[in-house]
């Protein structure tokens, strides 16, 4: 086993053990949603955290993964696993297409954020009127529990499935981090012109990053559809998922393997707190998210991971 993958594998193994010791539905549901958000955030982080291309519209990938799974199964009778795979591939292809259009036009920074936001809105409007996606009424995946239909009877199995997806995504990111591609991606983030001057094929690097990013976030959407079995345009392509995807990475630690997972756990806890404090009135959880986002940008630009790292050298110095 490669050394650099070991910490990720150890944490995944620990997380995999949770359902064996905890029987509470509340805890497992909490973790399942948190892991799904971490997965969406891991996709965002690859492009935004490592590559420095801030997308404000990752819902376009999440929703495409979700709708692909639902539409292929319900309208075309395709097997759930195949549909799931197709959803991931579609997310990656869409990433390539959006990247090809925007990066070739030289859009960076705020412009890139704006154009991704617009793509997500276009997708949302199309999904809300297209009969294929169920238009305004949405689309329902019939309940058929079983391994072949990718609908798990027990909560533990669903949990392990999303954990496996997240694990794969984190291993991919970790593997990229230590390879040439990772270094090139960071070089593009730090100074695109300098990276180009050093011979980095900037367009190719960005395209690869957005394709992987799109595929990973699409898998989170596909998992969402398979878990909740209902989609409409607002759920799949709504701005909430674009915001949550970037929040998990930024709160946890932008441009780090662990960031999205840590951020998702913290944010999901905040969201529960918001529900607890606000009763049935929606919105309080997101108010907390917004406040945390500003506080993190102000006081801890490298997120939870950054805070932890800033503590470490002091400990070493004392010891």
């Amino acid at each position: 086993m490669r050394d650099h993958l070991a910490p990720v594998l150890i944490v995944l193994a620990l997380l995999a053990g949770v359902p064996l010791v905890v029987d509470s539905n509340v805890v497992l549901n909490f973790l399942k949603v948190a892991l799904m958000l971490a997965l969406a955030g891991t996709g965002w982080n690859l492009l935004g955290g490592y590559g420095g291309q801030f997308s404000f519209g990752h819902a376009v990938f999440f929703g495409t993964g979700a709708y692909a799974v639902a539409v292929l199964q319900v309208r075309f009778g395709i097997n759930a696993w195949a549909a799931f795979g197709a959803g991931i591939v579609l997310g990656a292809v869409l990433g390539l297409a959006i990247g090809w259009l925007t990066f070739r036009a030289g859009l960076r920074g705020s412009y890139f954020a704006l154009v991704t936001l617009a793509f997500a809105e276009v997708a949302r409007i199309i999904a809300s009127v297209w009969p294929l996606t169920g238009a305004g009424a949405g689309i329902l995946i019939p309940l058929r529990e079983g391994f072949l239909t990718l609908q798990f009877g027990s909560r533990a199995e669903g949990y392990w499935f999303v954990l496996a997806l997240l694990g794969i995504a984190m291993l991919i990111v970790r593997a990229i981090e230590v390879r040439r591609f990772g270094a090139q991606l960071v070089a593009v983030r730090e100074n695109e012109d300098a990276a180009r001057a050093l011979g980095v094929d900037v367009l190719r690097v960005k395209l690869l990053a957005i394709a992987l990013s799109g595929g990973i976030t699409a898998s989170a959407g596909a998992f969402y559809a398979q878990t909740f079995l209902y989609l409409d345009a607002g759920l799949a392509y709504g701005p909430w998922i674009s915001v949550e995807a970037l929040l998990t990475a930024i709160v946890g630690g932008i441009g780090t393997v662990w960031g999205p997972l840590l951020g998702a756990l913290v944010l999901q806890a905040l969201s529960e707190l918001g529900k607890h404090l606000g009763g049935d009135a929606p919105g309080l959880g997101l108010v907390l998210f917004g406040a945390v986002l500003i506080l993190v940008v102000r006081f801890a630009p490298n997120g939870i991971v950054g805070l932890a790292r800033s503590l470490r050298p002091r400990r070493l110095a004392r010891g």
Partner: protein
Amino acid sequence: MLLSSDILIQAVANGLLTGAIYALIALGLTLIYGVLHIINFAHGALLTAALFAAFFADRVLGIDPWISVFALAPAFFALGYLLQRLVVWPASRGEDRAILLVTLGLAVIIENGLLFQFRSDTRTIDHPFGFDVVELGTMLLATTRVVAFFAAIGVAAALFVFLAMTDTGRAIRAVAKERLGAELSGVDVPHIYAVTFGLGTACLAVAACLLLPSYYVTPQVGNAFVLVAFTIVVLGGMGSVPGALAGGLFIGVVESISGLLYGETLGQLGIFLIFILVLLFRPQGLFGAKA
């Protein structure tokens, strides 16, 4: 599809009326962009906040939006000034990516704070001129919207004069053009940044008071406007005041006509497609100089 010219002219006129409000919203956005070089993602949420303020001024205090605008515009100027001075600038330390995130955070807080407080109910006011119309040839135009049109154009013109003639206006333009040079000539740059943010926010308060008599309020209502405003700003050239005005009127007409032809939802789609196409192929805007 065959359309009678009367319907088409009516659609164009209505588009222009809406477009003037769009222009006012976009003006605030483009002003902030032109001077601070930041995209203010909180613009839509601040518009929603202004609509709520005007709504409660009418329903609770009994003050007509056309009157309360004279209090709300200064109040929102102060709000914008303080937000920039106390939140956006200190939190982002002037870094582009950080500013994007901070204004996004503000948008999320404002929008969901309103949602938490007021739920997603749709609210409207009964305006005394709510059902009046102005006849113009074959056209029937809602009085409230005609008033809004002229008021929006008037405010835009006043802003233009302010930027051109006053010392503060000159300082704002100086900072927009050459920040360091302005700073060396003794311009208080953080103050000018905050004034600009305040002016942009005040534009929203005016737009809200003009919109309210013929529109509705929900916690999400600002979103519908903000992407349109981004489109206008990009179309008119980021930071260009005349560009925002022309772009606003143009988009208003495009929306009205495409809504007539394809229905409201798909009409919106047309706007986003214009937005994406302009960003991809002419990011300096139709009226902007080649960057």
